[in-house]
């Protein structure tokens, strides 16, 4: 019982961990520019640009490890 629960949780984190972080960062970026100018704006630009950078990285540069198997079992070295 306990074991399957922890697997379930790690599964959830595996799928939603990065998206959740990016969502929090986006929300942070949307709010900071409302609070002030100058440094607040810069923080907002960076926070909002990170999701875009993540997309660019994965779409054009393949991202790290193409799927679980290559990453975990064959050390992330994929030949194709």
């Amino acid at each position, binding site marked *: 019982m306990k074991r399957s629960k922890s697997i379930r949780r790690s599964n959830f984190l595996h799928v939603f961990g990065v998206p959740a972080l990016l969502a929090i960062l986006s929300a942070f970026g949307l709010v900071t520019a409302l609070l002030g100018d100058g440094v607040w704006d810069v923080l907002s630009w960076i926070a909002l640009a990170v999701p875009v950078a993540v997309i660019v990285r994965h779409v054009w540069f393949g*991202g790290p490890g193409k799927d*679980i198997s290559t990453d975990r079992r064959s050390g992330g070295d994929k030949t194709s």
Partner: protein
Amino acid sequence: MLSAKTVKIWYAVHKWTSLVCTAFLLMLCVTGLPLIFYHELSHLLGDEIKTVDMPLETPKASLDSVVEAGLKKYPAEFVRFLYWDEDEPDLVYLTLVPSLDAPPDVFRSIAVDARTAEVLAEPKFDEGFLYFMLELHVDMFAGPYGMLFLGFMGLLFVASLVSGAVVYGPFMRKLDFGIVRKDRTARLKWLDLHNLLGIVTLMWALVVGGTGVINTLSDVVIKAWQYGQLAEMAAPYKGKPMPQKFASLDRAMDVAREAVPGMSPDFVAFPGSVFSSSHHYAVFMSGTTPLTSRLLKPALIDAETAKLTDSRDLPWYVTTLLVSQPLHFGDYGGMPMKVVWAVLDVITIIVLVSGLYLWLSRRKKPIEERIAELEREEDLSRSLQTEGVVR
């Protein structure tokens, strides 16, 4: 993880909410793109009003003389609003109407030099490319009902985002975040792109979609305020006619500044306009930070005596509308924010189009079979790879 039946329901929600709203959302994303740069584009398109160079410390003309200049040009008309240019401190605008009960879309705007009280131009806000984009975006030229209809489409969009995030789970269970399988079928590649682009921009899309929905309620919100707080504030004047002679607007402004210290005037609604009573100047004051500059506080000044009648903070529903505006427009963090807004808008277009493509190229199999199939394929390619077999 979710049971197969729950996944099926969420998937159906995602499919149907998306299908209904996609065409309208595409229109909103495309027309919204130039609107992000409304200010810059209107300058580029030659709508900029030039003021003559004068020394920086040149004093401002009285507002009474500004109003007088406008009425001198159109003696038979009435002033409805007076407001300042957001970026150009030397420009004041007047909104004139031919009669006090003119419909809201019948008016003219004139730009006046704030220092010389000279009429500079009559900007046309109801023609040209940007006006066309704006009207399409706001109500598709269909008035209040068009606006509410688009609000409903926005609600469906929000539902499709939420359900999309839920079904992202079972699709990605055995995959790493951000995977884009370019070397298999086109459909698989676009499925991966749809998932990646959609989940990464989820929060932004939720906020812009949600605040867009709130904005479509603006007519309702303003009506509620008119019949609620505004009516309460002006209650002692109920039934009183329009003043025969108006008190000095400059004196009214001084009274407003005193009543609302630490804020500066944003616009003035004249007696008989929707934002005021028949007997008041309603001076709307605003703060100085990006947020507080949107949060208005009205001061009702008797237009006959220039005495303060009442000043209150706006109720929560108007405040919600005012805060949701910058969050929808993306105009509160300078040019870099507008650029990010535009990029995220284009990404949303890609998510919409890829979603449509995935539906059009669908195979007639239930969702749980397709997920299982994807996972079987994944397991197969994985075992081939671990055995060192290269495709």
